[in-house]
């Protein structure tokens, strides 16, 4: 745990932070609003005493009620991983700014998040499906997409109410139009 990093982040990002800076093991976690992403990431990337130059990972998360996009950054100034959580992205309007202006390499990771969650990254010039075929209609890593078979259930299954089995729920026309980048 890097206590100095916590103080530094609170000083540099103060008003953008949603809730406290959390630290556990070798990870430091901050939460921000999705709208603040470009400015916060610009600060983290450019500031001389932060220098988070390396984007290690971009992951979409469906909490069941909202979406999150989780970024992991690495910098030589700290031994910790920095986890930036863009929190509270509404399920019916999952839009957030793209980070391709800072890391061009995020383009495919954002495409993957679009493919799996239907997250629309505004500013990504190539936001289309990457793994699944173009005519696929649903977003498989959303929690309301249920696997068709039950073979992978573990002995403790049944504890999570969201993961009932059933046919994949296809998104209807309106969902499609809302989440496709052209619309």
């Amino acid at each position, binding site marked *: 745990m890097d206590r100095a990093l916590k103080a530094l982040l609170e000083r540099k990002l103060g008003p953008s932070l949603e809730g406290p800076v959390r630290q556990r093991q070798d990870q430091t976690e901050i939460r921000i609003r999705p709208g603040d992403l470009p400015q916060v990431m610009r600060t983290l990337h450019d500031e001389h005493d932060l220098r988070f130059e390396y984007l290690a990972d971009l992951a979409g998360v469906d909490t069941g009620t909202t979406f999150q996009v989780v970024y992991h950054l690495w910098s030589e100034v700290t031994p910790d991983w920095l986890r930036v959580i863009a929190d509270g992205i509404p399920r019916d309007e999952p839009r957030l700014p793209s980070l391709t202006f800072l890391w061009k*390499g995020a383009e495919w990771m954002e495409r993957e998040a679009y493919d799996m969650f239907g997250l629309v990254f505004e500013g990504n010039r190539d936001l289309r499906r990457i*793994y699944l075929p173009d005519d696929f209609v649903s977003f498989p890593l959303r929690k309301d997409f249920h696997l068709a078979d039950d073979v992978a259930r573990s002995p403790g299954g049944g504890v999570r109410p969201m993961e009932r089995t059933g046919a994949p729920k296809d998104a209807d026309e309106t969902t499609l139009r809302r989440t496709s*980048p052209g619309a």
Partner: protein
Amino acid sequence: MTTPTRPSLDDPALTIPVDHAGIFEPIPLARTERQQEFYALKDGELLINMGPQHPSTHGVLRVVLKINGEKVVDLDPVLGYLHRGVEKLCENADYHQVISHVDPLEYIASLFNEWGAVLSFEKLLDLEVPRRAEYIRVLSAELNRVASHMLYLGFFALDLGGITPILWSFAERDEIMEMLAALTGQKLLFNYFRIGGVNGDLNHEFMSRLGDWMGRAGAQLEAGMGLLNENEIFVRRARGMGVIDRETALRMCVTGPNLRASGVPFDLRRAHPYSVYPELDFDVPTRSEGDSLARFLLRVDEVRQSLRIIDQCLHQMPDGPVSARLPRLLRPRPGRAFSSVEAPRGQCSTYVISDGTDQPFRMRIHDPSFLHLQLMGLLMPGNLLPDTMAIMASLDPVMGGVDK
């Protein structure tokens, strides 16, 4: 009763304009900005498919190439032929089962996938791994790294038209695979790491094979590389090809040997140490050129360092248990954990969220090959079609990891 009228073939609304008529398949609908730019053909340009069954794509990858004569103007990789939805499967499996799900991702070096997963689970559980288990992990993983790099060195030469090196490097790789088979019970997808340790202790067959091999590995490597390093055709085809500079590499999220060949000494074993790497003595080789040849030579240096690590592991191997005692059903406290290991191709990381049940709530697997494949779009335009192989092979993507 009226019969439905059939549309006439002469109806102008139904005929395809000649400009857009594809021979084998219709040109996809241009939607994103990038697609519109890519599928707009200028005079003399042509779209062709490389793959999905093309020997130089190292798996099932289709690349739509826009070429002008023999020159590549632009390209659009089409992924997903190997997509298995591993992340979704992991969310529906318990923590022990996940290990066998992540195994076949980067199938050339599958121990590293397992390592990333078990490392993040151990963080969730605040679990202490016995030191002997850590040493066995490092030992077997470094062997796997050597095997993976050997395959790379051989295939790179094969893609450039040299057939002998792959036979030499495959002999080494096969010996390592037999060794690991003696240790783990399987020859390709080892399923060896467990949460809190490894599946079994070192055994006699593994140790005797390893001892034999270590005696000659260094000399064999030098002999094999002598075939290529001093081969003028090989060197001239690989030098100055697909150059990545430092800033571009960081902007494109490149990791591993490809990043170090561009002069950035970023190796997670040193940059963010895990396991017992802080106790081991090895160097992080870097090169400044950033071309295909640098990426090749850098991996040769890495094999030498791996041999050093293996040697130290054998000398420092402590006694003790090889696995922590854990219940069959794990229910970590709700929380998030991120872990990253230095796989032969770069950073292989796992991000896992627990909600207190016995299955991960979200399991994100990040594979380095995915981002290295993205580099193709940057490096290939402007090169000749045969040189795309020299670039792509030097980046070393494995489609099993790319497609997840």
